[in-house]
Every structure is written in structure tokens, then in C-alpha cells.
């Protein structure tokens, strides 16, 4: 049993912590790709892709017009006007954490509070490439520390389940968006296997989901675009794949249903989504259209988040 308000704060706290890390990875990828000699990079503007991958393209263009390095870093990392900027994530996350301190362990609180305090050291005014790298490493480390402290210290009660539901709903969303923003380079008409210009695009997608090494371990072969899609969408071994996230979401919802003795719409939706992913193949996805598939996955995942809120968090 948990106060609905506390459950909601835990859910969003986890989402914001996860979002900060995803945004940091997206910025890391943009930095790498934009540093490549133009002959390797293709025609895309990597900074623009970064903004698109976070789903805030329209607002950004309205405010800045130009997706330059500085503008994008400011928007994604520091802007208080972007509710999903890394700074906003830490602010909102800490505020939620403060409101539900009793539901957090001391280690979790210290992790988020420490990150929030340290965040003050950084600003857009001092973002040389070296400082940006240091900053991104700090964000990813803070997120890992927070996640790890939750894993190691939190009681496995309903509070933990709501916390993890936030993590996995957010993570599935991020993976789908990272893929969708680059879906065109994963389409089969691009020039064939290995070594081509697209290699760097494919590897950047994997990096965005911290799955580059994982790819080698799972497939033991050179990068192929449909394999990239398969890994990030369907492979249960990869903790950031959409299938893996949905599996976890469904399991935590089942745990809640078991604890509370009652199933509801969110359990049914999660199970249906999970079953669909388990029963499909990468061929079927390409047949449907990769972009269409991802758009649908993002919408369904959103709807599931809404169903969880309606069922438990109000």
C-alpha cells in the first residue's frame, strides 16, 4: 500500500532520472558524429538529429531557429525552459525525491541530491569539447549511481515496482525515438554491407542505446542495419530493447496486481504489447515499415503510461 501521490512521484522520479541519462547519451553521439570528417558523416546535421531524438524539435526550432552546437547543448542540457533538459530533469527529479523522501533509501536520496548539487558546477558558458565530455560523463555516472543505489538498497515492495515502471516506460520510449530519428539509414536501399559511410550512423544508433559492444556479443558479425533494428527492438538479452523494457513493465505490473489482488487495464495492455513483440520478427517489422512500426510503438508505450497513471496514481 502506498499513497497515490507518493507512487506518482516515484514513477516520475525514475522517468526523469532515466531521461537525463538518455539525453546525455544522445548528446554524446551528436558530438562524435559531428566531429567526423564530412566524407564519413553523410549529409545529416547531427545536432538537429539530437533534438529530434528527444521529441522536442518543434519547440526548439521555434525558439532557436538554428540547430547549432551551442543552441542544441543549451536546449538539451541546461535550458530551464525545456522541461526535459538535463538540468530540468535533475530539478524535477530532486523535487519529487524530496517530496517522497520516506519512500527512498538514504543512498538514493544522496545520489540524486549530490547530482543536483554538482549540476551547479556546469553551465553553457563553459562548454568546451573537453568540458562537455566531462559533463556528459558526470550525468551518466550520476544516473548509474542512482539506478544502482535503487537496485541495491530499495525494498522490493510496490514502491519499487512503481519506480521501475517509470524507468522502463521511459527507457522504451527513448530507444524507440533514437531508432526512429535515424530509421532512414537503416532502410535496406542504403549501400550494402560493412565499411560503408552508413557504418558510423549505425554505430551511433547503437551508442545512443549503449549497445555497441552488445551488438558484437549478440551477433558476432559486422554491423548490418536490420540487425541493429532487431537488437534494439526485439532482442530480450539487451536491457534497453523495446521488448526487454515491455517485458519488465509487464512483470512489475503483474507484481502489483498480485500484491493488490486485482488486475486492471494497464496489466492487459502491457501483456498484449509484450506478446506482440515476442511473436514478431524483424522481417515483419520491415514489411510493415520501420517508421510506421516505431511510431505505433511510441504511441502504445505512451498509452500504457497513461493507463498506469489512471489506474494507480490519482
Amino acid at each position, binding site marked *: *500500500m*502506498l*499513497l*497515490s*501521490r507518493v507512487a506518482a512521484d516515484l514513477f516520475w522520479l525514475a522517468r526523469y532520472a532515466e531521461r537525463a541519462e538518455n539525453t546525455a547519451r544522445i548528446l554524446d553521439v551528436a558530438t562524435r558524429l559531428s566531429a567526423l570528417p564530412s566524407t564519413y558523416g553523410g549529409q545529416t546535421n547531427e545536432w538537429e538529429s539530437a533534438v529530434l531524438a528527444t521529441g522536442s524539435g518543434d519547440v526548439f526550432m521555434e525558439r532557436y531557429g538554428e540547430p547549432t552546437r551551442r543552441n542544441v547543448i543549451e536546449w538539451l542540457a541546461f535550458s530551464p525552459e525545456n522541461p526535459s533538459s538535463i538540468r530540468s530533469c535533475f530539478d524535477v527529479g530532486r523535487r519529487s525525491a524530496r517530496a517522497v*523522501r*520516506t519512500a527512498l533509501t538514504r543512498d538514493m536520496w*544522496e545520489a540524486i541530491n549530490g547530482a543536483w548539487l554538482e549540476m551547479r558546477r556546469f553551465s553553457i558558458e563553459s562548454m568546451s569539447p573537453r568540458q562537455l565530455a566531462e559533463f556528459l560523463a558526470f550525468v551518466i555516472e550520476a544516473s548509474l549511481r542512482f539506478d544502482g543505489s535503487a537496485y541495491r538498497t530499495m525494498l522490493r515492495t510496490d514502491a519499487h515496482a512503481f519506480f521501475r515502471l517509470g524507468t522502463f516506460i521511459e527507457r522504451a520510449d527513448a530507444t524507440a525515438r533514437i531508432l526512429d530519428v535515424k530509421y532512414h539509414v537503416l532502410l535496406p536501399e542504403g549501400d550494402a554491407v560493412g565499411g560503408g559511410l552508413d557504418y558510423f550512423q549505425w554505430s551511433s544508433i547503437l551508442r545512443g542505446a549503449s549497445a555497441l559492444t552488445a551488438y558484437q556479443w549478440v551477433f558476432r558479425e559486422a554491423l548490418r542495419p536490420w540487425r541493429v533494428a532487431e537488437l534494439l527492438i526485439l532482442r530480450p538479452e539487451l536491457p534497453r530493447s523495446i521488448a526487454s523494457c515491455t517485458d519488465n513493465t509487464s512483470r512489475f505490473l503483474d507484481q502489483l496486481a498480485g500484491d493488490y489482488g486485482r488486475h486492471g487495464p494497464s496489466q492487459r495492455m502491457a501483456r498484449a504489447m509484450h506478446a506482440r513483440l515476442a511473436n514478431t520478427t524483424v522481417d515483419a517489422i520491415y514489411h510493415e515499415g520501420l517508421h510506421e512500426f516505431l511510431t505505433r510503438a511510441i504511441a502504445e508505450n505512451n498509452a500504457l503510461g497513461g493507463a498506469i497513471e489512471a489506474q494507480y496514481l490519482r
Partner: protein
Amino acid sequence: MSKFFDEMGGVDGEVRAGYSQIRSWLDQSTPEQLRARSREAEILFRRIGITFAVYGDSAGEERIIPFDIVPRILSSTEWQTLSKGLEQRVRALNMFLGDIYGPGEILKAGLIPEGLIYRNTYFRPEMVGVKVPHGIYVPVCGIDIVRVDADTFYVLEDNLRTPSGVSYMLENREISMRLFPELFNEHRVRPVEQYPNELLSTLQSLAPASAPRDPTVVILTPGPLNSAYYEHSFLADRLGVELVEGRDMFVDQNRVYMRTTEGPRQVDVIYRRVDDDYLDPLAFRPDSVLGVPGLIAAYRSGNVAVANAMGTGVADDKAVYTYVPEIVRFYLGEEPILKNVPTYRCREPDSLKYVLENLSELVVKMVSGSGGYGMLVGPRATAAELEDFRNKLAAEPDEFIAQPTLALSTCPTFVGEGIAPRHVDLRPFVLSGSNGIRTVPGGLTRVALKEGSLVVNSSQGGGTKDTWVLDQ
């Protein structure tokens, strides 16, 4: 030697019992070593997030209360007298509250002017005739005590509404044990860590008879913006109970429920850290969004216990304070163990005359003020401030009391350049349940960090110390 009694050096500088190891520790440490420990302590406090908000200061939204690394020590005999006196005082105050919201015997006996009670801002007519669970109005109170010499402790103030500071008592101990394990090895310090457990059983003992054997206790907070929010969340965590805000609860058929992920759940005991005025918009301030509509009706129906009861402020008012010795004698037939500070009631013409004539030597306090606001410290006041208070006193004498400037004891304190004496007070906490009255050995020692200052309030630059009661 200074004219103040020092907790370590007495009046003659000779080290008092209990302080000898502390003295040699301080003698052997360089200012750099002490500074390093002090900084370490501050980092720990900040990391844990023990902060408080200062009202009216938006820039410094969150601060930490400075923690001084030198402990304040009480001997077991000193504590024995203090704790007996505290229990006596709280027992009498509970009976007093039951009386003034009931038969009013003490008023009929003519010991206290009726107007002082019935026209008091904190008097709650809604509480008249209400059957309070087990007759206990103040399950939790914090009593401010100062010391002026080796044998004399005065009660400065009774805090019977929503006293705070107990989290600092507990965290200060945690942190000093982390920083100075060797000192704890050399002393037998009586523990305080059982406080949350004692608080929980006190609260549970107040549950209505209709409640289940394992009653649902909650802590009601105004929310994260409140200056004491850290303490609310800390206590909820240590007690293992829900920390609720008004919007988390609702009243149906005179029963109180909280909204949970499993649907509504009935609440039996509310330890509230929200002021009377904000508890229930139907009963008190209609514009309050912090409270729970219908809470008071549920309370009056006996379906929920609220700690502390509403209307206890009438007994910790500074004007009523002056009558506490009479209150103790009237209800218990005993001499008060703890003394009051000699106090002039400005409502009485003779006293007012004396106060006006001796203003520059007195401390003048507003009857309803707290937190060190609205107070005049005569010896440190400017001519303009004195004149201002002279006018206030003449206009509304009922609103003020005056006390001699007390020679508060000092305690060695680390102040950057080294160790220096600073004035301290003590706030021990007293719990009253249907299962008895109890204290934990210790309390919160507050220290005025500015040289010569007598104001220990955290909102005015005060700090805190770990408070040790030695076992023998």
C-alpha cells in the same frame, strides 16, 4: 574569567566533571584539525540533505543549520533532576488544558484571569467539551531550558503545539558518532536513538478504541516548502508511517481516509505538523489548502486521534507561562522542580511601570511571538529600538512580558580561529501517551554562534550541538 557560567569551565575555569576528556581532546587538536572535522560534518549534513528553509529569504532557499563539533555534556544527576521536572511540568500542563476546555476549576479558583484564557488567540472554542483521547492534549512537547549557574536551570518556554528539532537531536548524534568514534569510546553516553520507537508507541497508544490492534498512524505535513519538512520526512521514515499532505486525505462519514494505490485506507492517528489554523478549512481558516475538510468533525466524533490536540497553544503562550508554577501546585499539589525565569507581566500596572523604567536591562517578548521574532534585548538595543518598544508597551501592555537579561551558560564552541565560549540553551523532548510520560536522555542544544549573542534560534544565526547525558 567571564561572568558567565561555562558548561566546561564553570565560573573559575576548573574543568567540570564529565568534560575532562573533551578538554584534553580540544587541547591536543590544532585549529586545522578541528576545522577539517567541522568541514567533514558540514559535507555530511549537506549530502544527507538536512536543510531548512528560511521564510522571507528566497535566494538562500535551503540552508543547513550549522553543527558545532564540540558536544554539550550533562551529568546523570543533572539529567535526573531535569527529566523529573519535565515530566512533572508536562503532566500539570495536560491537566490544565483538560481543565480550561472542561470545568475551568483553576479559573473559578481565581488563580488565572479568565480573560487571559478565553480571549487568547490560541484558545479554541471548538475544543470545549471535546473528549480528547485519554485526556492527553500534548503527546509531543519540547521545553526550552537555559542554565545560569551550576545548580540553576530555568524553563524559558514550553512548546506545546508542533515543536521541531528532534531530527537534529538524532542526526547530530549519528554524525558525531561517525566523526568521533574515539570520544564515544572514552565516554558512556546514554543513547537517544530509541526516540522514534518511543514516539510511535506513544502515538499508537492514543488510537481510538474502535481502531484495529495495529492502528494506522500518519504524519501530516504542510509539504516540501515548509521549513521543517526535512524533519517531517525524517520522522515518517524512522517511524515507518506514511507522510501525508492534506490533499492525500479525505473525510467520509466522520472517518478519515488516505488515498492509496489500493484505494482508500482509514487513518486512526494523525501526528500533525500543521498549525491549528490550517488543519480543517471547515472549522478554521476557510482558505487553507493544507488541511482536510471535515477533520475536526471526525476528531470530535472520536474516530481519529490528532496529536497534538487543537488549542494547546493557549498553554504555551508567554503570558500563561508566567502561571505555570501555580498550575503545577494547583493540579499536582507539588512544588515545581523546574523554575520559571522571573517574569514581569506587563498587563499588571506595577510590573509595566518597572519594565518601562528599566527597559535597557530587560528582554521584552511578545506574548504570541516565537522564533526570536518581535523581541527586544534591552542591553543590545539602539535608542530608537528602545523608544519603539516603549511605545508598543504603552499601547498594548497585555501583549508583552519582560524578563531580566539572563546570563545564559556558555559552552566551548569551534568558531573558525579556534575554540571560544558561546551561549547555549537546551530543548529536551517529552512524550505523553496513555502508557505514560517519558523523555529520552538528551535533547537539542542550540548555540548562538555570534560572539556575545543570546539568540540561539536557527533562523537568526544559531547552530546546534550534540547533547550528551553521561551514564554516571
